[in-house]
């Protein structure tokens, strides 16, 4: 009963930490005035979601998803699925990291253009200068 309660709290703490990180990123995107801080918030949100997906693929007592004894081309031993960590979330999240760095490049280019046009990076000042 003690071990069950403890692993229950442990898994809830892990998912709670991920939810807290997501909310930090979302708050930065909504409430901060500076454009670069909003971009940092967007990246924090993205990496928190990637952490969430990867942590659903972990297995207790399993090893990394590279088949041992398979290096000489013809590993004919039987492979049990419970010995290796689930590789499917890793594949999907690799694409997500690539897309996040592409989005970061375009967002920073837009921030530089906004600065050249309006002279400031604060959102309320930009809105004021837009009306003129």
């Amino acid at each position, binding site marked *: 009963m003690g071990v069950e309660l403890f692993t229950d709290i442990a898994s809830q703490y892990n998912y709670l930490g991920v939810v807290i990180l997501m909310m930090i990123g979302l708050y930065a995107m909504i409430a901060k005035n500076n454009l670069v801080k909003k971009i940092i918030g967007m990246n924090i949100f993205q*990496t928190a979601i990637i952490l969430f997906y990867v942590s659903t693929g972990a297995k207790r007592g399993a090893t990394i*998803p590279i088949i041992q004894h398979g290096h000489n081309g013809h590993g004919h031993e039987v492979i049990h699925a419970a010995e290796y960590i689930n590789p499917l979330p890793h594949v999907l999240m690799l694409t997500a990291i690539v897309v996040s760095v592409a989005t970061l490049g375009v967002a920073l280019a837009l921030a530089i253009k906004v600065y050249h046009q309006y002279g400031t990076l*604060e959102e309320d000042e930009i809105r004021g200068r837009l009306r003129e």
Partner: protein
Amino acid sequence: MIWELDFIILTLVIFSGIAAITVKDLLSAAILFGAYSFMMCLLWAIMGAVDVAFTEATVGAGVSTVFFVAAVFHTTRNSKD
């Protein structure tokens, strides 16, 4: 998967995430974001996702921090909040 290490690094990640959006100097925010990225890479390596950790180490702490510093260099360094 060592759960004690996981908890400590998760707490450190949350603190550096809060710090990266709170400091007023944008260059410090970019460097703190690089530190946040490194800790995330450690967290994924503990959970056994070695390919994802490798990618985040090169992308987040290498190329992404350079892009942020280049953008801060061409705009302004101080922010009002």
